[in-house]
């Protein structure tokens, strides 16, 4: 897919909680086709400590308004700066980058996300609905004060919820949720995005239960378009670039040890 580098206009900045916000960005030209699982590289601003672009999963695409949304977790100076952007500001993106989640040949689909890793699942839910598939969502957060957008996910499918401290939904990690205690699992395919440890645990569970699983990796990267070879992960084919051959991989192909 052809990549672009364009200035986008900020049209919305919605705070979800103390650590997360959603940026809504409008393109000056008609958006190209974008697929769920793809990401953008954001040029934050010209400060010595935010030298490189930051990668973000695409949270949602609305072709009717020519906008896309990013779900951002505040981690450092770059994301703090992004949190202060206001309507009218511009942000330069390189997009759409990477591969995408596969289109399942089944209706029995589970989308699993944790923390800011839920970002691509909203877009995937909408995309699947347009293909007449209603997935189930299993989303995990630290605690009730970080749980957000459940009503939005519910538009696209049934939502199961867990929090680490049990303040909302079931207590524990997503892998401890009762959804995974069913045998056999009522799904033919799992799509997962979140912290590495969570994705590794979900992929192990999926393998044990014989369900195909795709994960979206979030390795550190410099360019995001395949030239620096910094974001590699070990797979059954050797070192592959997360930004080009990924970010979505068949979990069974990953060696995991390179990602800590």
């Amino acid at each position: 897919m052809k990549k672009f580098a364009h200035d986008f206009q900020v049209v919305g900045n919605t705070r979800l909680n103390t650590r997360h916000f959603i940026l809504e960005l409008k393109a000056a030209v008609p958006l190209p086709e974008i697929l769920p699982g793809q990401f953008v590289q954001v040029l934050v601003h010209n400060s010595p400590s935010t030298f490189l672009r930051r990668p973000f999963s695409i949270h949602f695409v609305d072709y009717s308004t020519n906008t896309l949304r990013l779900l951002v977790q505040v981690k450092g100076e770059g994301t703090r700066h992004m949190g202060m952007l206001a309507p009218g500001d511009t942000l330069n993106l390189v997009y759409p980058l990477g591969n995408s989640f596969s289109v399942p040949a089944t209706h029995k689909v589970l989308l699993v996300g944790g923390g800011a890793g839920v970002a691509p699942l909203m877009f995937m839910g909408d995309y699947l609905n347009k293909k007449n598939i209603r997935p189930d969502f299993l989303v995990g957060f630290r605690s009730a004060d970080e749980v957000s957008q459940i009503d939005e996910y519910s538009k696209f499918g049934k939502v199961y919820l867990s929090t680490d401290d049990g303040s909302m939904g079931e207590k524990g990690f997503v892998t401890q949720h009762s959804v995974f205690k069913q045998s056999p699992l009522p799904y033919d395919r799992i799509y997962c995005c979140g912290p590495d440890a969570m994705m590794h645990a979900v992929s192990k569970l999926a393998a044990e239960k014989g369900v195909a699983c795709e994960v979206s990796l979030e390795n550190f990267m410099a360019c995001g378009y395949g030239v620096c070879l910094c974001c590699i992960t070990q797979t059954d084919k050797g070192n592959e670039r997360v930004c080009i051959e990924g970010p979505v991989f068949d979990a069974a192909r990953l060696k995991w040890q390179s990602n800590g």
Partner: protein
Amino acid sequence: MADLKISIAGMEFKNPVTTASGCFGYGEEFRDFYDLGLLGGIFVKAVTGSNRNGNKYPRMAETPSGMLNSVGLQNKGVDHFCEVIYPGLKDLNTQIIVNVSGSTIEEYVKVAERINELEGIPAIELNISCPNVKEGGMAFGVVPSTATEVTRAVRDVYKKVLMVKLSPNVTSISEMAKAVVDGGADVLTLINTLLGMAINAETQKPVISTITGGLSGPAIKPVALRMVWQVFKAVDVPIVGLGGIMNATDAIEFMLAGASVIQVGTANLIDPMVAPKIVKGINEYLDRHNIPSARDIIGALKVC
């Protein structure tokens, strides 16, 4: 419109702007963004004698005004380059120069011999300055006698333009420059990355898997400019200058210091359109100063 053409060692560059090895792949990824024919040249990713997997993840750390990398010359080897990559490169309307690396003198010679056979590749850039491999690489580029030896061995088999890429991790860059010119280098490229390190205080661990890596970006520009200037004064061969060039002004500074051609490296990782912007900016600068040709600013630094 100023004349942007530069001729060095019998090679004609349509403008002085080229892309640095390791920051541009084989050019393929940039075709979405612009016509590669706008570039003066492309220095393609390092090629070694056989397949290399490179170093373990993580290979990169963002540092103040720069980045540290430790990719470790990941590439599929010279056979793969000749059979798979080269056919897609040879007809590009720009100069293609292959960066050649190895662990032993024999490996450098083997790769250079193979590349020598390829039509449409007018030069190689001998990489004796990669800081991220255990054997070879920078080890050849920090001792003058071994730098002369590897350059001479390649010179014996390589019949086209021989460029040698110098390491900044030396006491005297002028001495290293003289050593590789003695070995038969036609052109010098400088600088490769500076050996550096990044630490995460919270985890008390190094950020990259190899602990140390190569620092690039604007953080190293003053060091690079100083070295280009010193080498320009020390030897009579043309210089390809790089190190933290982000825009046309940076590029012009390198040319004033003595570079005939410049390479854009890390900036390609941040702005995929940067190289043609620099071509345009150099032209605007020359017009604004009523300078007829890009050649006129090479080494034109006004020192009182």
